């Protein structure tokens, strides 16, 4: 090679090194950002374990792969972990909570508990800290449908007074649950989240350290962290972490490693919908209705009874129209290095010349008038058709979100019952598959959302035992309730009784449980301090004991159970946007005002059941105390008014025809007299001419 060429190459290398150092100083890893080449970078990479060492699969006790150390070599892990998927545990008041979304649901069928949980300050959800749920407990409850990081990476501090004792002992064994980048970015069909050989099973075993290794199919893992006796492990956490790989053994698939111990990961920038689906699927439940003929002396009638809920056949149901037309989730839900994935139309994203702000229904289909770039103003991104909305008065665009007419299952008299992947743990196959019918998530329920527009929501009624401090309600953890009220709740009895999927709960059981909880509550010091009250919340009602305190003066018989509705006890609901139905199935299409403006339209008068386990046993079996509410009661609209308003639509066609007819007659009169005037004028002119 010529000396000049050598110099040039040398210079190029220096420039590249300086360039990458610059990128690194700007908070970017060398793999972050975009050099303009649109092809996917091939990832044949060296793997690193959780101690930061290069992974050697042939070792006797190889350690599991660490995504943080492997991917973090080229990508800025800290920046990524600030993204929506990973940041909820550290949401501080000054950070944005984002619009209300699907919560985690702490469920326990024995204590009849369903608590919506989120650390994002969403109305109606409880922060883990409010109910003393440690990050360790949190992972145990929700870790199966989870991309890692967040609560999984909160290192327990043994010296902290608030540390969960279980976590202090078990975390060194289980390890941290780091962000598993492959959950989303792997295009390999072998990426396994839900099967008994997949990631979720490792979570169930508390093998957090091993989740990514098994999920990616890099090898097999034998052993269960939760079953490892802590007394058999060194006391020092670091030592325990070193030793554990001898008890939980990883065997790598040598065929995956090349001669330099590098592995090919089929990584994509834009994950496919299949990857999102593991945590973001929903399943429709179909109500099976039985018709019963009731004959009495005076009348004969047919009543409809719901007999069971069954899953909709997946092969007959359709995809979201966007997916059906070739788009994928990440075409709209995009993100930069910070992984703050755009969430649709509600949060208006400030973006470069409108390129981000138009990543919403409105932006894509109609454009954003406020954007700088002409293309963004015009809309039609990715070929989105421009809707004309013929015959839809513009007030609808101020009052309704796009999803109101276009998204979710078609509204029915009673909202459909849905199950979601995260709440009902869908997608766990084989021997650890579970069938969780509760909570009964109803959809679509049309609710006025945070942006003051009416939108279809998913909704369920929280149920929990808790403590009432004046107007504040704090739920109790099910295990604490079980500890205090095992007997009244009949937790030791294996009962097959179910009422609408719940284990029935009688008012007497509620009373006895409340007495047990109340007796355990600390007495306030000082006379002016309000006495905390034990309560049970279910079906939109609070149940509490009448005045007095069993721990002090009254006897059991003197208490009565009082049930009432309360302002603070609301259903938990969050807006849905999918599946988007084809335009022909939208509400109001073709001028069908009656889809919503009729006297019994599901949109306003759908019956939302206030789902509850509270039931009484009669001669004919259990009877649930379910009440219903009209959907309009969640829309900040006066029910009487909308009743009248919709009723007026009965006369709409007549009104339109009458006015049209009147206009025709007036037009005829005008025509007639103008012709007569023309005749006079013509006559006058010709008379003038003749004279």
């Amino acid at each position, binding site marked *: 090679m010529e000396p000049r060429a050598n110099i040039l190459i040398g210079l190029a290398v220096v420039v590249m090194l300086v360039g990458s150092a610059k990128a690194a100083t700007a908070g970017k890893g060398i793999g972050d950002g975009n050099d303009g080449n649109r092809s996917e970078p091939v990832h044949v990479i060296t793997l690193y374990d959780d101690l930061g060492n290069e992974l050697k699969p042939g070792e006797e006790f190889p350690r599991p792969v660490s995504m943080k150390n492997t991917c973090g070599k080229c990508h800025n892990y800290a920046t990524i972990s600030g993204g929506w998927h990973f940041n909820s545990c550290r949401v501080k008041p000054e950070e944005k909570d984002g619009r209300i979304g699907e919560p985690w649901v702490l469920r326990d069928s024995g204590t009849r508990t369903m608590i919506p949980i989120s650390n994002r300050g969403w109305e109606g959800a409880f922060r883990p800290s409010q109910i003393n749920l440690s990050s360790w407990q949190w992972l145990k409850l929700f870790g199966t449908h989870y991309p890692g990081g967040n609560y999984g990476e909160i290192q327990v501090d043994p010296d902290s007074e608030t540390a969960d004792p279980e976590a202090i002992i078990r975390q060194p064994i289980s390890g941290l649950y780091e962000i598993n980048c492959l959950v989303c970015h792997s295009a390999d069909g072998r990426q396994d989240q839900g099967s008994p050989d997949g990631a979720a099973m490792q979570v169930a075993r508390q093998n957090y350290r091993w989740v990514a290794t098994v999920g990616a199919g890099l090898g097999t893992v034998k052993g269960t962290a939760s079953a490892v006796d802590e007394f058999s492990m060194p006391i020092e956490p670091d030592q325990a972490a070193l030793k554990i790989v001898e008890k939980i053994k990883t065997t790598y698939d040598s065929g995956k490693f090349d001669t330099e111990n590098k592995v090919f990961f089929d990584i994509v920038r834009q994950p496919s919908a299949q990857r999102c689906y593991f945590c973001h699927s929903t399943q429709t439940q179909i109500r099976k209705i039985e018709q019963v003929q009731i004959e009495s002396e005076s009348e004969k009638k047919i009543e409809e009874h719901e007999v069971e809920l069954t899953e909709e056949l997946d092969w007959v149901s359709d995809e979201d129209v966007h997916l059906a037309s070739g788009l994928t989730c990440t075409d709209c839900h995009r993100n930069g290095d910070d992984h703050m994935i755009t969430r649709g139309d509600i949060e208006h994203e400030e973006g470069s010349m409108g390129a981000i702000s138009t990543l919403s229904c409105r932006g894509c289909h109609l454009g954003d008038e406020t954007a700088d770039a002409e293309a963004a103003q015009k809309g039609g991104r990715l070929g989105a058709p421009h809707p004309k909305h*013929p*015959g839809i*008065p513009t007030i609808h665009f101020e009052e309704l979100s796009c999803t109101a007419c276009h998204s979710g299952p078609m509204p029915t008299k009673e909202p459909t019952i849905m199950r979601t992947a995260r709440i009902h743990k869908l997608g766990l196959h084989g021997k650890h598959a579970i069938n969780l019918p509760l909570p009964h998530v109803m959809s679509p329920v049309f609710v006025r959302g945070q942006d003051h527009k009416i939108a279809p929501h998913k909704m369920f009624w929280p149920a929990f035992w808790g403590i009432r401090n004046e107007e504040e309600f704090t739920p109790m953890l099910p295990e604490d309730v079980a500890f205090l009220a095992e007997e009244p709740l009949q937790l030791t009895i294996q009962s097959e009784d179910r009422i609408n999927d719940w284990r029935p709960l009688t008012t007497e059981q509620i009373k006895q449980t409340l007495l047990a909880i109340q007796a355990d509550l600390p007495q306030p010091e000082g006379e002016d301090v309000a006495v905390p009250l034990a309560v049970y919340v279910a079906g939109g009602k609070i149940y509490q004991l009448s005045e007095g305190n069993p721990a002090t003066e009254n006897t059991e018989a003197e208490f009565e159970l009082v049930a009432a509705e309360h302002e603070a006890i609301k259903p938990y609901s969050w807006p849905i946007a999918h599946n988007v139905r084809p335009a022909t199935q939208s509400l109001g299409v073709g001028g069908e005002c009656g889809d919503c403006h009729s006297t019994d339209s599901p949109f306003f008068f759908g019956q939302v059941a206030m789902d509850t386990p509270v039931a009484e046993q009669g001669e004919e079996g259990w009877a649930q105390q379910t009440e219903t509410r009209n959907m309009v009661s969640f829309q900040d609209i006066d029910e009487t008014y909308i009743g009248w308003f919709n009723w007026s639509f009965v006369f709409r066609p007549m009104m339109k025809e009458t*006015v049209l007819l009147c206009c025709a007659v*007036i*037009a005829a009169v*005008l025509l007639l*007299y103008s012709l007569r005037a023309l005749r006079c004028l013509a006559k006058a002119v010709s008379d003038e001419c003749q004279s």
Partner: protein
Amino acid sequence: MFAIISIWSIVIVLGLVVVHWFACPVGDKRDLSFGGLVRFKVHVLTMFFLGQKLSLVGKLKKLVYMVTLLCFLILFLTGFVPRLICGVPLSGYTLMIHATFAPVFAVCAMIAIVGYAQQCRFTREELDWVVRLTTCKWKGLLCNSALGGKLTFWLGAILILPVALSMISSMYPIFGTHGQEILFELHRYCALVLVLVAICHVYLVMRAKFKVD
């Protein structure tokens, strides 16, 4: 914008009416005493009665005319007051009242137009008025003519069409969002012009009636 234009135009037209009333008194002199004002009010009131001299058809025609005016007043109040006084768009119960009286207004207006069209057709007198205007014979031109009443009648009849059709056509799945916006603007601006025309019409008709009485 619409609110400002509406308020100003209505104030200006009412102002012109008052100026005209004083500039061209109907009688020989204006009686501004207390008794005179009471008499004036009673006179105005009696104009709304169905006169005994009227035939049955005449009575019916006048009745329909009165109902048309009443409906128009209700449509005016419900259409303009929310926007002009409260600064909010027409909605809720007010919208329901507006939409309920709209077809009644349309029917009555149609009957009134059919009934009074012959009476309000232009005759040689109006032609003479135009001739006087063009030949600069302007003395008393603005005081003594039935032209104004007739002209506002026909203008009103014309304006009812865009006012009514703009809203009715927006209720059919024909016009898209932009079209709907245009129809809405058309409706309210035509309604505004109709209101101005109606003020003039009612004033001129009452003036003519005063003269007859």
